[in-house]
């Protein structure tokens, strides 16, 4: 057996097992280079060796490619349904066609053009699971993650885009080193059926003859199964090495219904990205390369068989998530730490500036006298006292105005003058008399229509006309003149006659005697003046 200790245990490494009827080829990490496989016989000894191989190599992700005769293809139609109904139909068909194998796959290839437009379904299965199961069991025992199982015809479908010829009907003929000659028929790039023939390594001439014969057999079979449409040309693509292709070209006879295409597998491999040109006529390395480099669906492996692979994927996902989280949080933490450090630097700078200004402040304040009152409050106190000074009031101005007017009316005598100041002033006084007087002044001023926001003084004059001999008209005229004289004075805002010796208004009752008695004719007048504020 081979020593495998030098194999790398890279997590990105993949492995492909290529299983034929009698051999298992293991392809390991080609990395865009063609590699030679490790071969194991499908005998007990071969399995023991394979088991040892698995134990001695890292459990890299493995894909199983099967190319055996016991693969069947059944095309059928099922009603166009979806979900659980579709699954139930497929399960019933599976029971009907392939009862004894767990390796079963269905592919919905389209819909019928007529009738109910049922779904066209291709049912494929590996009918002899004993060929596959021992190898899969060994993989599972060794905890090797199995990514999937597919067959070579299914894989061949991936090459169709790179093969020439009419896609409506195409027969791909390829040679595999350990399995033989594989002919796969596609209609509209959809797999229809495939046939494997054992082709032992032999001389080229014999191979050419066998290939021609087997292709003819395949064509007869397709005809018998009514798979071929005579109205459409059939493209036959030969996929093998250049020497074999050359001989095939020579041996081919012209047939108008068939178009032969000869594709060098080495050239195609290079076209698909394989660095080394394949030197053999076999397609193994090309197909393995496709498996190793592309994400392929699983066709046959069960969930249980994929268990280790799913765990591996979940583990890798969690590993990536953990790494990502650590990196992200470390970065965020570093960002926060840098920000915090920047703030720390600013803190020390601000503290230094604060200390500096405090020092300046202490020095500057030494010049100020030590006061019990804050400097700003000095201004406040000063402003309040100015305001109080401005609100000062006295009766002298009012008395002067009244005196001047009185000089013009010698017959008028004043008995009493009640003066009050500052209509806007509201004193919180327990002395109800004072309070009432002041509030009365306020309301009086408001009644007289004077703006109560200003300061006013008010005086109520109680007086009489001297030497009254019963001539009410004369007295009333005199009092009216006196009131008018007051009102005409510049400082006076309003004069209201409160009481007259005789009320001749229509709202009051009036009585008297024609015999008049000399006496005093009493009256009262209210005078309102603006308060001259001292400045």
């Amino acid at each position, binding site marked *: 057996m081979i020593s495998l200790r030098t194999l790398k245990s890279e997590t990105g490494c993949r492995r492909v097992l290529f299983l034929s009827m009698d051999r298992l080829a293991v392809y390991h990490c080609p990395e865009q280079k063609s590699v030679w496989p490790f071969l194991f016989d499908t005998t007990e000894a071969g399995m023991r060796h394979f088991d040892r191989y698995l134990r001695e190599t890292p459990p890299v992700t493995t894909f199983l490619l099967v190319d055996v005769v016991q693969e069947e293809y059944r095309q059928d139609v099922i009603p166009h349904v979806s979900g659980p109904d579709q699954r139930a139909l497929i399960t019933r068909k599976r029971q009907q066609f392939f009862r004894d194998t767990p390796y079963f796959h269905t592919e919905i290839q389209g819909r019928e053009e007529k009738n109910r437009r049922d779904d066209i379904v291709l049912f494929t299965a590996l009918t002899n699971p004993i060929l596959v199961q021992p190898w899969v069991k060994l993989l599972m025992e060794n905890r090797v993650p199995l990514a999937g199982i597919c067959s070579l015809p299914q894989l061949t479908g991936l090459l169709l885009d790179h093969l020439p010829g009419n896609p409506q009907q195409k027969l791909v003929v390829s040679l595999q080193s350990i399995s033989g000659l594989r002919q796969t028929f596609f209609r509209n790039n959809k797999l229809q059926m495939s046939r494997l023939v054992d082709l032992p390594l032999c001389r080229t001439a014999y191979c050419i003859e066998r290939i021609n014969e087997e292709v003819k057999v395949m064509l007869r079979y397709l005809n018998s199964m009514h798979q071929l449409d005579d109205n459409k040309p059939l493209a036959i693509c030969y996929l093998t090495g250049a020497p074999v292709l050359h001989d095939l070209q020579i041996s081919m006879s012209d047939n108008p219904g068939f178009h032969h295409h000869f594709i060098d597998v080495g050239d195609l491999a290079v076209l698909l990205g394989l660095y080394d040109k394949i030197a053999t006529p076999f397609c193994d390395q090309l197909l393995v390369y496709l498996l190793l480099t592309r994400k392929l669906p699983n066709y046959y492996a069960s969930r249980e068989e994929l268990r280790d692979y799913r765990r591996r994927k979940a583990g890798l996902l969690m590993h990536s998530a*953990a790494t990502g989280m650590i990196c992200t*949080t470390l970065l965020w933490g570093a960002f926060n730490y840098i920000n*915090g450090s920047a703030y720390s630097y600013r803190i020390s700078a601000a503290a230094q500036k604060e200390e500096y200004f405090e020092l300046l402040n202490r020095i500057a304040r030494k010049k100020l006298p030590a006061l019990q009152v804050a*400097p700003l409050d000095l201004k406040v*106190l000063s402003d309040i006292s100015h305001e109080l000074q401005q609100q000062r009031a006295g009766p002298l101005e009012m008395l002067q105005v009244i005196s001047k007017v009185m000089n013009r009316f010698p017959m008028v005598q004043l008995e009493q003058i009640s003066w009050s100041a500052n209509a806007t002033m509201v004193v919180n006084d327990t002395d109800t008399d004072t309070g009432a007087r002041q509030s009365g002044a306020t309301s009086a001023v408001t009644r007289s229509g004077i703006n109560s926001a200003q300061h006013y003084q008010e005086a109520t004059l109680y007086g009489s006309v001297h030497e009254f001999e019963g001539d009410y008209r004369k007295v009333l005229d005199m009092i009216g003149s006196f009131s008018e004289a007051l009102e005409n004075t510049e400082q006076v805002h309003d004069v209201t006659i409160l009481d007259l010796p005789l009320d001749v208004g229509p709202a009051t009752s009036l009585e008297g005697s024609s015999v008049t008695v000399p006496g005093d004719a009493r009256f009262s007048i209210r005078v309102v003046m603006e308060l001259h504020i001292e400045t």
Partner: protein
Amino acid sequence: MYASCTAPLLYMLGLLIGVTCAWTSWRYKQMMYLQYHTTEKRFHAAAERYLAVNEEERLVREYYPYVLELHEQGVIGQERRLDWIETLQRAGKHLGLSVLNYRIGAQEEYMPAAQYQSNYRIYYSPMRLDLDLLHEGELYELFAELDGHAPGIYTVSSCRLSRLRREINLAAIQDNIRTECELLWFSIKKQDGGTIDLT
């Protein structure tokens, strides 16, 4: 084993390290941020205090003498009731008033129409004067005496002048007018009612 044990452990470890790192660094940054703002505020306050020194110096220079004068007059601090009484007595003698009665009431808070938004309150002491005058000119002289010699700020809130006899006595022997006046003497106190002491 790798997938079943190591990955979850690594995941948990990553989560733990990540959360711890994130929380610690965030706390550190947040703490530094708050501390920075506190220091910055202190710095600005210190700068403003320093910049205010010149203004305060100006205020002291401009207003302190006047405030001291107010303090002397009893407008700020203790009111000078004794001086008021002495001034009234002197004025009564000077004017030759036969009757000059006074009554000073308890100090109360003054509520002006326009409130002062400051740390101070205004109080007033009501003073009632009852006096007999020969003529109203004596009232003028009395207020002039108070203005000139009585320390403080006052205002006359009301006055009532009543004739004592029908005929005016021009011989200056008997008084002619009875006068009742109410004065308010103002003083400024602290918000809590305490006296402002400038001594």
